[in-house]
C-alpha cells in the first residue's frame, strides 16, 4: 500500500513536470532545480538541449526513450545503459532523473501502467553493467519495429554529418 502510494505520488510529480517544455532557444530562461538541474548538468550536453540527441553519437530522448518501456528488458536496459549506470549521481538522484526523463521526453510513447523507477531497483541494476549493450539494443529495436512502434529506418541515433574540413566563408 505504501509502495503504491509512493508510486502514485511519483507519477503525479512526473506528470506535473511533463507539461513544461524543457528548453527552447529564444524563450525566457527557466529555473532548474532537482532532477531537472541534475539532468541539465550531467546529461543534456550530449542528449541535446531539447532532447534531440547528437546524430551519429548519442540517441535522442524526445519521443524515443519511452519506447523501451514497451519491452520486458526495457526497464532493466534504461537503468543499466552506460550513461545512467556510470553516472556520478547517487542512486536517489539518478532515479529522480530517470523518472524526470520519462515524464519529460517520454511523451505519448511510455507504455500504459509503466511504474516509475524506484531507488532500490536502480541501485541494484546499476551494479550490473551491460555486457552487450549494442546487441541488446539492436534486438530491442527490432522488436519495437516488429510491434509497429518504430519506423524501419529509425535507430534513434541517425548519422553523423559528412566530414568536412571547414565550413567555408
Amino acid at each position: 500500500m505504501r509502495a503504491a502510494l509512493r508510486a502514485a505520488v511519483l507519477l503525479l510529480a512526473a506528470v506535473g513536470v511533463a507539461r513544461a517544455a524543457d528548453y527552447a532557444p529564444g524563450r525566457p530562461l527557466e529555473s532548474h532545480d532537482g532532477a531537472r538541474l541534475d539532468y541539465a548538468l550531467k546529461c543534456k550536453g550530449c542528449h541535446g538541449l531539447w532532447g534531440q540527441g547528437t546524430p551519429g553519437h548519442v540517441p535522442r530522448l524526445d519521443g524515443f526513450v519511452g519506447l523501451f518501456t514497451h519491452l520486458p528488458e526495457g526497464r532493466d536496459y534504461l537503468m543499466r545503459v552506460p550513461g545512467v549506470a556510470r553516472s556520478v549521481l547517487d542512486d536517489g538522484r539518478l532515479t529522480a532523473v530517470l523518472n524526470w526523463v520519462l515524464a519529460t521526453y517520454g511523451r505519448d510513447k511510455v507504455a500504459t501502467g509503466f511504474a516509475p523507477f524506484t531507488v532500490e531497483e536502480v541501485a541494484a541494476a546499476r551494479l550490473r553493467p551491460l555486457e552487450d549493450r549494442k546487441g541488446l539494443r539492436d534486438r530491442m529495436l527490432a522488436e519495437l519495429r516488429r510491434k509497429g512502434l518504430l519506423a524501419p529506418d529509425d535507430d534513434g541515433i541517425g548519422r553523423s554529418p559528412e566530414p568536412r574540413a571547414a565550413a567555408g566563408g
Partner: protein
Amino acid sequence: MILDAFDRMMESAARQLAQRSSRRSILARLGTVLAGGAVLPLLPVDKSGRAKLAHANEFAKTAQTKDPTQCNYWRHCSSDGYLCECCGGTMNKCPPGSYASPTSWIGTCINPDDGQAYLIAYQDCCGKDSCGLCPCLGTEGEMPSYRPELNNDIVWCFGAPSMVYHCSSQVLIGKA
C-alpha cells in the same frame, strides 16, 4: 620491570575508570554515540551542490559583467579554450567558417550583478583551425579526464562535421 610498571599503570587506570563510572552510564554514553552516529547522516546536508556553488562563488567574487573578451567575464567560469568573442564570433554564435557543435559541456556560473546562478552550455565551434586568441582556463564543476563526459579539456566537437576545434562559445540555457 617496564612491563610491571605498565601493568600497574593500566590497573590503576582501569580501577579509576571503574570507580568513577557505573556500567549503566557507560551503556548510556555508548548508546548516545551509536544513536547519534546513526542519525547524523540523516541531517539535511547538501553534499553535492553547496561545495560546487562555493567554487562558483569564488569565481564570481572577481568576475565582471562588462567585457566578454576577458577570462574573468562571469560566463567564463568554466570556459576552457579560446573565447569565440575574440575570434569573430560571439558568446552565442560561432565565427564564420566554423560549425557549432551539437554537443556541449554544461556548467553553472553566478552573475555577480544579480547573484543568480545560470546554466551555461559551453558549445565548441569546430571545423576551423584553432583560433588562438583569448585563451582561458575555467575549471568550474570540471571532473578529471577519466570522467570525459564531465571534463572540459577534451574537444567537444562530437557530432559536428569536423573534430577540429576552433573556439568556445557560452550559451545561456537556464537558471539554476
